[in-house]
């Protein structure tokens, strides 16, 4: 993607990257001097915020990647994407608490939502094809009704999806946060499950990349993103491609719901929250780009967590500031194409 420009320019980049890596390594492994701790509350607080930001980014990426995938191909802003997330979370809760297997919950979250995604494509969007605005309005209507019906079924109670014991607990990371008076080193302990979330997001991200770039379906999808009309003209069943994309997109929202409901919790209103998170991530990262979604999620997740610690009052607003800044400098988003 980043085709290196001139040779000298590349050198500058490498140098900058090396310096950056050195600073990061020092930050991680050194015992912080007092002035730095004073500036950033404590090393523990800082690295917890960064790690939380990274893991939250993983969650945001899962939600936003489905959103951006659907958008890229179908030019359809699915404002019901948040509802898909929330429904996935509730289904994950029901299945997990009934069967006792968390992985069943994740699978059910994906499968049920994928089916719903296909149904939405077949019964709703196909009838409004080429009419982006009406499709978008329909998704808005669906989200209003869905939120209310979910409130009726699951009420306003907060649910947490129980995670299996092998995922529970904390691990010790090789990051020294402080030294006790007797010279004993205190290492940073971090929730294991959140690291699993991050790893899952990375694996799914790579999987998506492979699907898009190395498979036949992916080729069709990419062709469709570039030119829908040409794709259907070349004899490919566009509707099938659309249905697959919608299934994957909705299924990813479902998985994200189950994971989000395990690491955080499920309650009414989460649908709007994650819809907005996806919107901002996709606007920042570039619409229709999986890589963009990853970059956007990283920026927004980190900004949210670091903001929450260092300037809690405006932490929430920070993400929107980033969005406006990106729009002003690069309207199509960081990885977007005009």
């Amino acid at each position, binding site marked *: 993607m980043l085709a290196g420009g001139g040779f000298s320019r590349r050198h500058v980049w490498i140098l900058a990257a090396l310096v950056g890596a050195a600073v990061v390594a020092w930050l991680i492994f050194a015992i912080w001097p007092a002035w730095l701790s004073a500036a950033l509350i404590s090393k523990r607080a800082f690295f917890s915020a960064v790690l939380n930001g990274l893991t939250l980014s993983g969650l945001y990426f899962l939600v936003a990647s489905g959103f951006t995938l659907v958008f890229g191909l179908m*030019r359809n*802003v699915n404002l019901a994407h948040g509802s898909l997330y929330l429904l996935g979370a509730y289904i994950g809760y029901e299945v997990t608490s009934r069967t006792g297997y968390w992985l069943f919950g994740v699978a059910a979250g994906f499968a049920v939502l994928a089916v719903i995604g296909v149904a939405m494509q077949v019964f709703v969007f196909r009838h409004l094809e080429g*009419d*982006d605005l009406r499709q978008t*309005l329909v998704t808005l209507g669906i989200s*209003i009704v869905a939120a209310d*019906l979910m409130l009726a079924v699951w009420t306003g109670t907060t649910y947490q999806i129980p995670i299996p014991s092998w995922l529970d607990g904390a691990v010790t990371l090789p990051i020294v946060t402080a030294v006790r008076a007797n010279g004993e080193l205190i290492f940073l302990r971090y929730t294991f499950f959140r690291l699993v979330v991050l790893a899952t997001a990375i694996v799914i991200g790579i999987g998506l990349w492979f699907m898009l770039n190395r498979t036949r379906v992916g080729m069709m999808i990419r062709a469709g993103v570039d030119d829908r009309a040409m794709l259907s003209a070349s004899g490919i069943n566009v509707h099938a491609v659309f249905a697959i994309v919608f299934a994957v997109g909705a299924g990813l929202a479902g998985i994200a719901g189950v994971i989000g409901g395990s690491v955080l919790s499920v309650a009414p209103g989460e649908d709007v929250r994650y819809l907005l998170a996806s*919107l901002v991530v996709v606007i920042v990262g570039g619409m229709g780009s999986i890589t963009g979604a990853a970059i956007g999620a990283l920026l927004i997740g980190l900004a949210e967590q670091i903001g929450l610690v260092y300037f809690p*009052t405006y932490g929430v607003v920070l993400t929107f500031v980033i969005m*406006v800044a990106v729009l002003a400098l690069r309207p199509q988003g960081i990885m977007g194409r005009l």
Partner: protein
Amino acid sequence: MSELLTAARPRLDGTFLERIGLGNIALVIFLVIYPAVASEFFIVQIGAYSLIWGMLALSLMILAGYGGMVSMAQISIAGVAGYTVAIFGMNHTGVHGFGWPFWILVPFAVLLAALVAGLIGLISNRTEGIYTIMITLAVATGFFYFTQQNYALFNGHSGFAGIEAPKFWGINWRAPVPFYYLCLGCAVLSYAAVLYASRSAYGLTLQAVRDNARRMRALGYDVTRHKVVAYFYSGLIAGLGGVLLVWFNGRISPGTIDVSAAINVLVIAVIGGMRHPIGPFLGAVVVVLIQTFAIDVVGAERYNTLIGLVFLLIVFASPDGILGLWEKAKLRAPREQVFQLDPLRAGVMSITNRRKRNI
């Protein structure tokens, strides 16, 4: 009522009466004598309230109907005006409240709102079409969070209370009947202005930009400027609606301008129809009636399901809202040819050759 059908065309012929339209005259007479037949509750809580939301939806209709830009940030613009009134006028929250007289305050608030609207237009116009809905939704949410967190200016989650409409000419303008006429006056003014502007050279250019921005750009029009100016005009109306809304409620807080309020504006505009400036007001009456009386009919618990289903039904069955249904009914009777102006369908991609229009 045939006026409704052909309004988007410039009509410079005919007598004065014909140009106004009999249907419109009947409507005006009804609206003027309405307080005489209605109870206080219906005058303010249904009448004035519908007019205010109608104005907010009208401000969206200008953008969406004539400009093809669906903005979700209209409620934020109204909020800017409302907060300005609260901060620079009087409130009894004990924060700010500079006590400016209303005749400086209101124009200032409306102008500020319009400028913010122009700014939002500038931001969202960096990208095009369907993106607008995403960006403006995000902007609206950002503004909501900001007002909720900021105490220095917006007094945070609590907002401002005790904001009173002015009293002048010996009239308390928040008393039911005067307030109704105040809202009616503002609404009629906005309505007439929109109707007039839609037939002006500027309005026609904007509609042409909606239909084919590329062609207009090639013809040498400054497309971005036209769109930003449309945002500015819509901001004037949204700002005026915001001032009335804050006088109506007597208070403003982040809850007034949250995401559901932003969605409400769009729902009203879509249900009413976006082909003619009367649509938003129709939609407002319907939505306000449902909102108020749902508790007596279906129970308030499922109010959102009801409104969501009505919305879905309208989007599916009649893309032009109630107005579209009305016209379909009219079309059954043989009448003059009606042209399919269809802003809702005039999305981004494939609008060019779908219909021919002889404006």
